[in-house]
């Protein structure tokens, strides 16, 4: 440790303390400059930077430079900047402060060189994000935040147990590529997967995020799941088990999003879908696949935030979230609609958008490995993304029937934030080499071939055709869909309330019994000591004399024996 060095993430974690102290334009300056300073710190850190601290008999490494870490920290900083711009007027002080601590600790994870540092930032993220959810202020947000916190604390406990077991086995706390071959590494993998939204606990994303404020969900969509992608990318590249898990997530997201009526829950399910692509690619594990996962995460954060900013603007201006209440908004909210459509095209990997040049790395990696089934499923899923997010979201919110709502576009800072991310979605799509240059491995891939362009247009346009042909089958209903959270929201709740009522019956019976016993005792006491009792007929002095006489008599008898 030759020079002074702090984790770039701490700039935002510590800087967030200023947010509640400042107001007005000064606060805006802090909100916008903290991510810029963080980004500068990320890129000024030398490529071999490492800060080592002795702790007990281990060596912690709170700062370690890596190409993967730099890539994720870069997009996290950009996200915090644009998110801050989007949020600073509408969001509460608590939400902004918590969101910056949350974003900063996510960046802290990307520079963690050891598992202890990683775990500490991991847990700060869980707390920060819970406060972001609670900041919406509604009772449903409070309950959803509580469920969210419980799931993440559970994930944290599993991760911690895994880390302890791993350190016990290997004697090292270093965060590096691991094999899933021991209880410790299995638990660490499960801990990471909980945050990625993997089955069976995927439901927490669609349960909690849509309860946050319009800006809150923009922050939430970016950090937790993508930090988990980063951790899997560094910790478990090429772990075969991740391929089926990722594929399950991909189709889970599509099916549930197709069933969903709430526009922000549609986008929440779509997060699971997108992270599924990345998890499967990490499982494939070739350099191209890992590049694909990293690039897709980068692009995804931007277009998913853009979609949620568009949905958030609709929520802010109309107060409505359900597709059944919305429609026809393109007429009075053209800016929101255009930006929502750009995000929708990017998530669908339309040519000339960021999704096209990043997701294709993953599908091509599957093809290059000769994984036919995986490739066919990923191709179907790519079509399905257009179906559930690419068309469904803009169609039901901005078009379909005319709801008669005529809200204006949102305030200027929200519009500017959306334009910035739309610009990035198309910019990355047109100039993929600028993103390819900062990926973990050298890229030898050309997304813009005639073959790729033609096939991608065909898949997407015919997927769109399927949407309109089957539009009647997708009529929105006022429903939600059961998921794993049914177990802890209904099943166990019913069991607990059943137990409560049964045990209160039992409790009453026991109480009656005890009362009867007590009454019996009182009765007996009363019978003997009450006004009519045998033992109460004489005055105490009289009975004293009686008992003394009895005792003396007994003594006399004993004396003679």
């Amino acid at each position: 440790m030759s020079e002074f060095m702090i984790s770039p993430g701490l700039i935002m974690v510590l800087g967030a303390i200023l947010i509640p102290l400042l107001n007005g334009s000064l606060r805006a300056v802090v909100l916008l400059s903290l991510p810029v300073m963080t980004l500068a710190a990320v890129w000024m850190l030398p490529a071999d930077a490492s800060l080592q601290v002795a702790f007990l008999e281990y060596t912690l490494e709170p700062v370690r430079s890596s190409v993967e870490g730099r890539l994720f920290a870069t997009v996290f900083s950009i996200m915090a900047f644009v998110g801050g711009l989007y949020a600073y007027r509408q969001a509460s002080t608590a939400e902004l402060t918590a969101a910056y601590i949350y974003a900063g600790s996510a960046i802290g994870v990307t520079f963690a060189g050891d598992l202890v540092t990683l775990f500490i930032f991991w847990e700060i993220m869980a707390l920060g994000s819970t406060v972001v959810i609670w900041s919406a202020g509604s009772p449903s947000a409070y309950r959803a935040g509580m469920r969210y916190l419980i799931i993440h604390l559970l994930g944290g406990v599993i991760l911690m147990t895994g880390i302890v077991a791993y350190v016990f086995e290997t004697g090292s706390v270093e965060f590096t590529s691991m094999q899933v071959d021991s209880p410790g590494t299995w638990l660490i993998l499960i801990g990471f997967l909980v945050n990625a939204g993997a089955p069976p606990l995927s439901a927490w994303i669609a349960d909690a995020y849509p309860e946050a404020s319009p800006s809150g969900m923009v922050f939430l969509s970016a950090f937790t799941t993508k930090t988990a992608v980063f951790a899997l990318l560094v910790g478990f590249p090429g772990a075969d088990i991740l391929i089926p898990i990722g594929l399950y997530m991909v189709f889970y997201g599509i099916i549930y999003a197709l069933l969903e009526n709430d526009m922000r829950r549609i986008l929440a399910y779509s997060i699971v879908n997108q992270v599924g692509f990345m998890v499967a690619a990490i499982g494939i594990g070739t350099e191209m696949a890992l590049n694909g996962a990293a690039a897709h995460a980068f692009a995804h954060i931007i277009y998913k935030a853009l979609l949620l900013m568009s949905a958030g603007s609709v929520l802010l201006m109309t107060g409505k979230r359900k597709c059944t209440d919305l429609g026809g908004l393109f007429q009075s909210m053209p800016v929101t609609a255009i930006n929502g459509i750009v995000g929708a095209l990017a998530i669908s990997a339309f040519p000339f958008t960021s999704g096209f040049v990043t997701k294709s790395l993953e599908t091509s990696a599957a093809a290059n490995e000769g994984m036919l089934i995986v490739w066919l499923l990923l191709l179907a899923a790519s079509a399905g993304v257009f179906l559930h997010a690419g068309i469904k979201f803009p169609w039901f919110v901005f078009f379909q029937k005319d709801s008669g709502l005529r809200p204006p576009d949102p305030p200027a800072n929200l519009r500017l934030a959306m334009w910035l991310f739309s610009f990035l979605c198309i910019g990355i799509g047109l100039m993929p080499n600028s993103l390819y240059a900062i990926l973990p491995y050298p890229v030898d891939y050309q997304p813009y071939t005639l073959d790729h362009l033609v096939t991608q247009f065909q898949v997407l346009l015919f997927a769109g055709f399927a949407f309109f042909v089957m539009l009647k089958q997708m009529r929105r209903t006022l429903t939600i869909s059961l998921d794993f959270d049914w177990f802890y929201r209904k099943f166990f709740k019913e069991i607990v309330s059943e137990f409560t009522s049964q045990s209160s019956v039992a409790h009453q019976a026991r109480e009656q019994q005890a009362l009867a016993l007590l009454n019996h005792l009182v009765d007996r006491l009363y019978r003997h000591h009450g006004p009519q009792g045998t033992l109460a007929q004489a005055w105490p002095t009289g009975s004293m004399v009686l008992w003394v006489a009895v005792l003396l008599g007994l003594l006399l008898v004993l004396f003679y024996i």
Partner: protein
Amino acid sequence: MSERKHWLYRKENLPKLWVIQIVILMLALLPEFFIHHHHYFEEQGFTLDASFGFYAWYGFITCAGMVALAKILGIFLKRKDNYYDE
């Protein structure tokens, strides 16, 4: 006087929208006559991916399948949206 309906929402324009969509789909299929697709899985004896219009019908069929699957699962999974309300 009530606001005149937007062009998109007028009944008489619906057939036009369908025609536009079909024309776009035809245009997307046009290159099939000129280009040869890359064979990814020749070694495994799978050549369907390079056949005429594979990406078009595969995109359509899988999406229709996913909508149908969602519809079927919906029978079991859907509940009124106040299901969890306390």
